[in-house]
């Protein structure tokens, strides 16, 4: 197991190396070059020359690349142009918010998607089935930011049931240790703060969750449809096993493999979705920070984030691969 993990991480290195070269060249090809990207478009030629000398942008590309990769390996992702703080520090304070949002979205997507997909397959061709197909089509075709608008308009503006934006009511004087607001509230015993933070998560979580929801419903449905008529299910029935055991341990468990793979693959979409969802709900996470970075061409932030996400993505896929052998013992990790 450990050897497998080590091997997979070693395989990640060439990809990251290639990515770092691409990102390095990307920044150098920004309009006006890196100095203009740093100083903004109104920079004077003298200022640009000074920055070029200071950061070594006038040196040969190869030399610049080695300086860059050296810093990167030491965990130095540079300084954000917009805020003036180290990129890594900015991520550390905002990542919990996005992670919290993503977890809520995933809980919603899996909690609704798997049972719905399963029911659709069991009642193939009936109302539940048609309903699930329609729902997943809506989930695929309605843009997440538009859905966010609809939810915000109905639940926050029209019916005033839930807060329209932000992470927590600023009037609540909550203590924060971990920057996971719900967890903070639970840890410190400030349950009203935790509840308020949770209420703020519902609408963005629902909006973000519909992306994976649609796909989870489809894959679960297709997978259960395939498994439920398999020979081993017939054998289990012939053996006289309880229907509950057959459904739980035979059908659902065997149908889960492609579902788990899909959930892992959805993560990239979720991050892109978070940029849009957080923008609509003024939710102060990584997504909104990235949007500002996109607008202000804050290239150290974009650069750092892409590397960060690539690593995160690869690690998630590793976890997904490793979970196969738990779900299906026949799959030996190799």
């Amino acid at each position: 197991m450990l050897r497998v993990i080590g091997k997979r991480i070693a395989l990640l290195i060439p990809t990251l190396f290639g990515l770092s070269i691409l990102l390095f060249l990307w920044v150098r090809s920004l309009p006006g070059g890196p100095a203009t990207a740093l100083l903004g478009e109104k920079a004077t030629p003298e200022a640009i020359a000074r920055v070029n000398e200071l950061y070594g942008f006038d040196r040969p590309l190869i030399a610049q690349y080695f300086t860059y990769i050296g810093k990167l390996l030491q965990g130095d992702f540079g300084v954000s142009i917009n805020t003036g703080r180290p990129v890594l520090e900015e991520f550390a304070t905002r990542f919990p918010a996005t992670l919290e949002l993503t977890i809520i979205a995933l809980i919603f997507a899996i909690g609704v998607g798997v049972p719905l997909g399963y029911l659709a397959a069991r009642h193939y061709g009936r109302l539940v089935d048609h309903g699930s197909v329609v729902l997943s089509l809506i989930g695929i075709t309605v843009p997440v930011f538009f859905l966010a608008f609809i939810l915000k308009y109905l639940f926050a503006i029209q019916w005033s049931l839930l807060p329209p934006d932000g992470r927590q009511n600023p009037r609540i004087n909550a203590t924060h240790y971990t920057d996971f607001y719900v967890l903070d509230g639970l840890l410190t015993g400030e349950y009203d703060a935790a509840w308020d933070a949770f209420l703020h998560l519902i609408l963005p979580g629902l909006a973000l969750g519909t992306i994976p929801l649609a796909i989870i419903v489809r894959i679960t449905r297709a997978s259960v449809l395939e498994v439920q008529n398999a020979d081993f299910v017939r054998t289990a029935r012939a053996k006289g096993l309880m229907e509950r055991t057959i459904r739980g341990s035979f059908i659902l468990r065997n149908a889960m493999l492609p579902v788990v793979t899909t959930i892992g693959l959805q993560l990239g979409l979720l991050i892109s979705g978070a940029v849009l969802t957080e923008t609509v709900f003024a939710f102060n996470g990584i997504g909104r920070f990235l949007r500002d970075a996109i607008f202000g061409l804050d290239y150290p932030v974009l650069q750092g984030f892409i590397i960060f996400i690539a690593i995160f993505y690869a690690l998630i896929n590793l976890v997904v691969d490793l979970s196969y052998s738990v779900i299906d013992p026949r799959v030996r990790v190799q």
Partner: protein
Amino acid sequence: MSAILPPAAGGSAAPDDPAIDTGRGAGLWRNAFVRLRRNPQAIVGAVIIGLFLLVALLAPILAPYGGNDLPGRTEITPTTIPGPGELDGFPLGLDRFGGDVLSKLIWGAQASLLIGVVSTALGLAGGMLLGVLAGGFGGWVDNLIMRFVDILLSVPNLLLAVSIAAVLGQSAYAIMIAIGVSQIPIFARLLRSTMLSQRGADYILAAQTLGLSRRTITMSHLLPNSMGPVIVQATLTLATAVIDAAALSFLGLGGGLPQTAEWGRMLTYAQAELAVAPQLAFLPGACIAITALGFTLLGESLREALDPKTRTK
């Protein structure tokens, strides 16, 4: 893999079905088309796309005003935006700039479909080039190209498009190229894997035995037989391209005037007025969703029509 159903095959297969020609000349695509025509899902998709295409093409005739015109500039005050039906001559009301919403939706159809089609064509062309090189040559060429594709795939699609748009500057062309390039890896992967799965097929062996050159085999045998999944994917990608284009303009990467008639852009500026004028968000949003729905329905029916597993049903 031919689509001709065995003429004497018994069971529930289609020989009794007059709509499916099992005789000579019934090719994969012709049978798929027959199936498509009988699938209500495909018809709905085709009608939606047809309607939007028509609106996009006839925009100069249909739209009462130009895309960037502000005919109702004098009717707008800081506190009032006339809604649908409140003002003569503006059936769907005005937006905060004084633009006619109906005209902007019509011109927006043109902009969105153009971006969708051009970017998908770009992605398809680039992806096919890489896919053919990788799948046709194999060996180190394949390895090199696929590692490159892996790197691109490790960056979420929208972020990749955003990074490319950042280099190209803010314009509609930048969005087209950005979305197109971000689709390349998907097409390259798909084409390569279908080509690889075909490489061991008997007809390839036959072509090799005949002494055909590698280029002829790749281009005239391998490629045409691997196009099915790619075409399905392209149809589905049109839906994502329209949504992604809207997302990029929504984030403000479209460039041009703020009142530019583009669905995603209309949503950006609807944000502040959501409480007083929700239709400014709902109308363009619905247009994006319905267009995407049309392409998705069409793509899925095409997949079903081309799938050998569903074909004998």
